[in-house]
Structure formats: structure tokens, C-alpha cells
């Protein structure tokens, strides 16, 4: 399945900056960065559980926010892109 993860992490304190870095790293392990704090991830249900647990352990629910959008398996019809850096299709042919 395809999920979209977005976050806002309060970075007023050094601890906040560290949380932001760790959140981004966790997201990078599971998907591709499409915008600064927006990630598209192709995961199976088990991977999603692990991914969620990892993110929830990082963020501070008092100051930060985290959103998961479930795009399902027909995600191609649900995503439109305009402008620079369209990203890649993780299910399409990957040739570099």
C-alpha cells in the first residue's frame, strides 16, 4: 500500500531540531522525500506498523504533529504533480 506522511516538528529547542532530524531519517528509510516534510512510502501492513511505532517514539505530541494519508493501491490516480522534481514511481521500471 501507499501512504503519504507529513510532519511539523517544533524546532525552537535543540531537542526539537534533533527530533526533526530523526523524523526525517526514519521517513527516508521507508520512502521517498517528495517535499521538505512530505514523504511517499510504499509499505506492507507489517512495515507500516513498525514505521508508525518508530515515528511515534520520536515526536513530542505536545508540540509536533504527524499525519498519515492512506493512498491505497490505486495511488497513481490520486497523485498529481506540477513543477520541479516529480520523484520516481517505486513500482515502475527503475533504470538509472
Amino acid at each position: 500500500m501507499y501512504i503519504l506522511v507529513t510532519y511539523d516538528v517544533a524546532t525552537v529547542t535543540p531537542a526539537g531540531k534533533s527530533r526533526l532530524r530523526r523524523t526525517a531519517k526514519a521517513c527516508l528509510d521507508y520512502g521517498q522525500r517528495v517535499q521538505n516534510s512530505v514523504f511517499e512510502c510504499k509499505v506492507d501492513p507489517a512495515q507500516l506498523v513498525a514505521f508508525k511505532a518508530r515515528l511515534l517514539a520520536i515526536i513530542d505530541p505536545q508540540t509536533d504533529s504527524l499525519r498519515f494519508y492512506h493512498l491505497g493501491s490505486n495511488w497513481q490516480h490520486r497523485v498529481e504533480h506540477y513543477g520541479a522534481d516529480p520523484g520516481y514511481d517505486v513500482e515502475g521500471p527503475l533504470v538509472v
Partner: protein
Amino acid sequence: MKKHLNTLFVTMEGAYLRKDGAAVEIRHDGESKLRVPLHNLEGIACFGWDIGASASLIAACAEAGVAISFHNPHGKFMAATRGYTSGNVLLRREQYRRADHEPAAVAIAANMLAAKLSNSRQVMMRAARDHGDKSATRAFALSQAADFLAVRIGLLGRATSLDSLRGIEGDAAAAYFAAFPHLLVNHDPAIAITGRSRRPPLDPVNALLSFLYSLLMHDCRSALESCGLDPQCGFLHRDRPGRPSLALDLMEEFRSFLADRVALTLFNRRQLTATDFRTEESGAVLLKDDSRKAVLVAWQERKQDEITHPFLDETVTVGMLPQLQARLLARHLRGDLDAYPAFLSK
């Protein structure tokens, strides 16, 4: 159930693959080109003389079950990396025992070859159905070859030695490739094929076939490794240091169904023409670097096609077939299945 995941192809000379978190990052000239999480991949195939991978990436891939293989720019397999030998030692021992026991090896190899011949025959009959009405010579040649293969399939069942199997297979392959030109509906004389040639391939069709077979080999080899079989110890192909004989055995079932059909489609739809190839002074015909990408895309798209598996009766992607057949072979070796059910296309 394992899903059919994507394969990453790297064709950029000078590329360096490194581990970045739980992802593979491809760098070139100090610039990041692509970054893909490893859990989205089942294989990484590199085509080039100057492509490197970091040790930590190789270790992470071994851990995650992602096969890495290195090929020269024309697709010839050069090397593959693997982690510690894993899987079930009892299964591997049984594999060696059967390989050493000729009647057992014949039983497995005969099924694989029967599937190969039957799948080749399907390709011929399909072409005769689709294009036979345009030329009587073609229809005749194709149906003749199909009949020839049908007789050979019958002979395989009665063969008692590996050498006689190899003889029957040789005859059948010769007949198949003799009729192969009739499968092409693109009449450009520049891509005419006269028979199978390799090391080096002497015409564009052979160049493309060799390239596609090496892609298929990558998939078969990693499928066998992932279910704990030794890809080097084959039943039909003799042991030779460095040769993945069992992967070559397993490939036989898929050559015509997967590789040959992709090649025919690319030429018949004129997605590839003679200009996509170049001839070296030695007479070797090679796929041009830019055209390789079109072939890889067609190959990946073919693997996404869904079919019903004739033995498992489940909807599967074509790309899963090597994995499934490797697992069926392991089940046969373990004694769960009386005979190895080789893949038969409909």
C-alpha cells in the same frame, strides 16, 4: 507470501551505490541520482565496467535478501555478491544427492525440458494463429516446428539418461531456432536472424536474446538462493566452477515464455530497430547504451503482467514465476511433491 518487488537497474558508468539508512543511494560525480528504500527492492542489477558498491550496502542487501549482480554493458553476467550461506543444509544435501543420482536427476530435468519445449511450442502456435494468415510459408514452417517439438516432448518422457535428454533438447532447440525467423513479422533485412549465435551474438536478435537471458539468469539465481537451494549444482547442466548450473536449469522453463516473447514484441512493434544496435569489428552485434533502457523498461513491464499459475491455480505476476518454481523445486526435494511441476504456459 512473498510479493514480487521491483528490480533496480544501474546502467550509468561511474555510478557508486552506497547504503544510506535503510536505502540504497546511487551517486555519480558527487551527485545523488536516486535513492530507493531496500524494502521496495528484490534485486539490483548493474550493467557497466565501472560501477561500484559499498561493503555496507552489500551487507545490508545480503541481510534484506536483495540480490546484487554485476554484468558487463552488454548484459553478460560477471559476478554476484552474497552474504553468508544461509537456508537449510538438509535441503541442499538432498539437492546434491539427487544431482549425483542419475535417475533422480533425469526425472527433474525431463520435467523442466518438457516445460521448455511446450512453452516454446506455445510461442510458435501463437505466432501461427496471429500472423499465419499473412503467409502460407510461415504458417507451414511454424506448425512443422510445433509438431516437431510435440514429438520431442513425448521422447523426453522415455529418456533414461541425462545425455539422451541433452540430445533431444539439442534437436528441439535447433528446430526452434530454425523456425525463429518466422516469428518475426518485421521484415527489415537488417534484423534478420539465421540461427542462434552467442559469444558473440552476430545479429541484433541474438544480441537482444543474450541480454534478456542474462536478466532472466539474475532472477532465477536469486530465486534459488532465497529458498536455500545451491544455484551452482544443477541436474541438467553439468557442474563447472563459477557456473550457476541450477539457475540455468530453472531458466529453461522461462526462456521462450519470458525472454523470447519480450524480444519478439520489441522487434515486431518496431520499438527496437537495427539502429539500436552497433556492430564491432569482430562481427559482434551489441545493443547500444541508450537502447538498453527501453529493453529494461519492457522487461520490467512484462514482469508486472498477471497470469494464473497452472499448478498453484493462483493469480501471480510473471516476475514471481522464478521464485514460485524455485519453491516448488524445494518442495519436491523435501519430498512434499512426488514430481517437480515445471512451469507450463497456456
